[in-house]
Structures are given as C-alpha cells and as structure tokens.
C-alpha cells in the first residue's frame, strides 16, 4: 500500500509547485495509473515514491512506513522501477542486466541464473537464445520485456513504471500490455503506472488518477471516470468518444446472451416456422459440418417473404453476413466495429467449439447507458 499525504514538490529555483498538496492512496495489489498532459507532475510523483526526488513537504508512506526512514539504495532495491528509455546497461548481457538487483541483494550465482531464466520465460523470451545477447541485439519489444523482467527480478511487492511501453509501436505495445495484465492478475503487485495515453490508462488501471498542473483532478476506477468526469478538463482529456471508451471496459461474454437460434441449410424452407416458434430476433445459419456461415434477422425474413423470396435468396442473404462472428474475449468497442463493418445488428459469439452466444446492438446500447447511469 502506498500513501501520499499532502505531498508538495517545488523544484529549486522555481516558484510554481511541480506537485501540490497531493493526497492519494494506492491499495495493496492495485494498479494505479497516473495520467495527464506533459509537465503535470506525474513522473515527479513516481520518483518521490522511490526517493529519486525528495518532496518539499508532506509524507510518502509504503506499507505505513515513511520512505525517508529507509536508506535510499535499500529502498530502491525493494521497488521495481521501469522507465520509458528502459536504460539497459549496453555493455552487459541480458542475463547480467536482469541479475543486477539480485546481485545487489547478494544472491548466489546459481540462484541468480535460475531466476533470470525463469523471468525470461515468464516474459515470453527464449532463455537459451536471449540470455547471452547484448541489449543492442534485441528488438524494441524485447528490450521492454527485459526491462520489465529486470524490475521484477527480486519479486518486489511495489513497482513503479514510467511510460514502460511508450517507446514501442502500437501493435507491440498492445501485446505487451496484454501480457503484463495477464501477469499482474497473478502477481497482484502494487503498481504505480505513468502514461499520457488515456486509452492505456483505461486498459491498465484498476484506478486512474488524472493530473494537471501538479494537482490531482480526479481519482477513481476507469468506469467512474468515464461515466462521471468531474469537470471539463477530465472530459476533454478523455475525449469525445468516452462512451465508446467505456465499452473497452467490457468483454463480449459479459453481456452476450446464450442459446442462439440455429438453423441448418436443409431446414431453410422451414425458417419462418422455426423463428416464430423460438421467438428469436435473429437466426444463424450453420453448414453441414456445424460451422456458422451467416445470419438472418426476423425483419429481413419478414421483408423477403413478403417479396416472395425463395430458399436461394435467403441463403444468399445469410451468407452476406458471413463475417459476423466474433470471440467472447473481444472488447465491446471492437464488437461494435464488427457490427458496423458487416452492417448488422447482431453478432454470433464463438467459443472453442462453435456458436455459443448472441450479441445484439441493443445489448451494447443498454450496457453503455446503464453504465453511464450507475455509480
């Protein structure tokens, strides 16, 4: 648990505080993302926690203990620290880089080597191949992984991450974020994470603290912040698409409905009766092997039958939506994108074996409205 009480930092030779009267509590096992425009003081706060910067006034406590009571080097050895530039020692191998903090703690050679391999594997890097490489031989994504591994080397309960994924391209960044979230679900470390990217904050944070000009504007869960932005600044910072951003907080299987209505190709002549019987707004067409290959809505069916369309026409109609199937772990905003792309109000949700659930535009709207409404 990290607590800041009335913390103020005024840099030498300046009159305007870089951080002013900050009181903030980060619970054990929580990821708190500090977000705000450049120069809002978020990195300064991070560095006051491991005493890279001393506060002008106020107290910083880790697990109830004032950080100033611990020797700075001892303190830093017990806190994982990742920066955007990574700062791997270029003249040391990957293994030596990861082993720095364990060696500072006085671990034996074998224990360090075993831990290095364990961490490399955890980070999705092949130990055999990677451990003897120098940082210059790694790709950007690999360097970031080594940087995170190095910070986790002695399994510190607290980690400070200053734009840890800021220097890699969006695709790699997204993958690193997913991997780190997966790790964090198991590790439950107390993490302070600095970023200027609100999307990253929403994705990574259990809570988000929004700063501007050295002041904390709002601290809350992503949902609270998206649904109840405290003022115009927060609203602007989140952007016009805050409802769509809120959809990123949910996965498809959070709101999809089970038992989709299914029809086989050879049953197509019977489609009208079947839909009426099931009272379903949409029916999914599956081929003989059970693979879904399209859908027809009740409205479409009614219109087409009125026009006297035959089985072939219905099949053609169903096939025109053949891409309207998604995985249950997809985020709602991506699902919405699929709906727009395939021009459909319904999507089939696949699990490992086949069609499992149905997601409708109405469900997404309801979700967005409901979440907007409740606290």
């Amino acid at each position, binding site marked *: 648990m990290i607590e800041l009480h009335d913390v103020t930092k005024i840099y030498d030779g300046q009159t305007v505080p870089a951080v002013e009267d900050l009181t903030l509590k980060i619970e054990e096992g929580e990821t708190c993302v500090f977000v705000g425009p450049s120069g809002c003081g978020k990195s300064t706060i991070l560095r006051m926690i491991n005493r890279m910067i001393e506060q002008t006034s106020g107290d910083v406590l880790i697990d109830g203990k004032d950080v100033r009571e611990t020797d700075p080097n001892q*303190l830093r050895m017990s806190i994982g*620290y990742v920066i955007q530039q*990574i700062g791997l*020692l270029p003249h040391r191998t990957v293994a030596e880089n990861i082993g720095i903090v364990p060696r500072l703690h006085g671990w034996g050679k074998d224990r360090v080597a075993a831990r290095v391999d364990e961490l490399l594997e955890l980070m999705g890097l092949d130990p055999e191949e990677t451990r003897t490489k120098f940082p210059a031989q790694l790709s950007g994504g690999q360097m970031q992984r080594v940087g995170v591994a190095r910070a986790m080397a002695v399994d510190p309960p607290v980690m400070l991450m200053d734009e840890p994924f800021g220097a890699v391209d969006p695709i790699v960044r997204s993958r690193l974020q997913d991997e780190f979230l997966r790790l964090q679900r198991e590790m439950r470390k107390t993490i302070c994470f600095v970023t200027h990217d609100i999307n990253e904050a929403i994705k990574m944070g259990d809570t988000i603290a929004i700063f501007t000009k050295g002041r904390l504007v709002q601290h809350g869960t992503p949902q609270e912040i998206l649904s109840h932005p405290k003022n115009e600044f927060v609203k602007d910072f989140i952007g016009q698409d805050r409802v769509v951003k809120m959809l990123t907080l949910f996965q498809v299987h959070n709101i999809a409905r089970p038992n989709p209505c299914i029809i086989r190709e050879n049953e197509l002549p019977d489609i009208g009766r079947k839909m009426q019987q099931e009272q379903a707004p949409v029916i999914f067409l599956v081929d003989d092997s059970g693979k879904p290959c399209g859908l027809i809505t009740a409205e479409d069916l009614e219109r087409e039958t009125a026009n006297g369309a035959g089985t072939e026409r219905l099949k053609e109609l169903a096939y025109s939506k053949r891409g309207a199937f998604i995985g249950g772990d997809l985020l709602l905003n991506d699902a919405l994108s699929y709906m727009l792309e395939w021009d459909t109000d319904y999507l089939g949700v696949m699990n490992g074996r086949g069609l499992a659930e149905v997601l409708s535009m109405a469900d997404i709207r309801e979700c967005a409205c409901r979440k907007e409404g409740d606290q």
Partner: protein
Amino acid sequence: MNGVRILDALSRVPQELTIHIIMVVVSLAIAIAVSIPLGVFLTRPRFKKFGVVAMNILNIFQAFPGMAIIALTMPILGLGLKPAIGALVVQALLPIARNTIAGLYGVDSSIKEAAQGMGMSEGRILKEVEVPLALPVILAGIRTSAVYVVSVGTLAAYIGGGGLGNLIITGLNMLWVEFLIVGAGFGALLAIAFDRGLSYVEFRLTPPGFSTK
C-alpha cells in the same frame, strides 16, 4: 648523404629511443593517474562548479608552447630527465581530463537513472556503469596525449633530458642532415606506434555490447 654518419646516427638510436620511450610512458602514466580522477571528480554533481576553473587552468597549460614549458620547468626542477617528464605531464593532462569529462557526461542519462532506480550506489554506478561506458572516449584522449608527448619529448634534449631530441640537436648543431632525418624519423615512427598500439587497446577494452551495433 654520408653513409658513415647514417650508421653513426643509427648506432645511437637504441639508447635514445629507450630513454624517449621511458620518458613518454612515465609522463603518460602520471598524467593518466592525475587526469582521470580529476575528470571523475569534476563530473560529480557536488564539484561541478570547479569544472570551469580547472579546465581553464589546464587550457592555459596546454596553450603554452612545448618549448616554453620545458624551459620553464628547468629553474624549478633543474636539468635532466626529471624536469623533462614534469613538463610533458603538464602538457598531457588536458586531453585526458577533457575526454574523461566528455566521456562521463556522454553516458546516456537514462542508463544512469535506471541504475540509480535499481538501488546501485553512486560508487557502484561510477565503477560498473559510467567508467566502462566512457572508456572508449577516455582512451581516445590518452591517444591524443601520447602522440603529443612523443613529439614534444624531442625538445627534452635541450634541458638534458636525452631521447631522440639528442640526435636532432646534434644534427642541427653540426648541420648533419643524416642525424636530423634519423632522429625525426624515429620520433615519427614512435608516435605512430603509440597511436596504433593504443588504438588496439581501445578496441580490446571497448565494452562488447558496443561492437555489435
């Protein structure tokens, strides 16, 4: 050209060359022992403020003509090899100190920040991070000084320091071109040898991570 004189000059080369090498090596060693700690000292945040003063003093030393420095050390240290070495040390300080400072400042600040953030002490960061990474630049300074000291070293003969300068002075006094050529030629060869030798050392001591770039 006089064949006998060439042989005569060559026969004196081993002795003078040995003295010259001793002179250069000793003065370089002393200059390194002074300049590198000085450079480290002047890059520590606490002592940064002395940097400008110290570097200006060294600049003045460097700006003195070699001949003048050698002449000026004579009243203080007398005649012989010792004052010659003293004069050469004064001249060798600047390039090494300047490159040490440049090298240490050139170390990526994010690397130092990461090292500090992991809990490495100042001394440890200096030893394990800053000096290894600054080493190529520091060695380049030593090379510059070495070449410089070899050439200024020929002036040591004027105050009885000996070395290849003896051959040159004899050549000048007697108007023996052969002595001039042999003395100057070996001086040049020695300078090249030092430069190449130190460049090899630089290559060997460059941190391995750098050579893969």
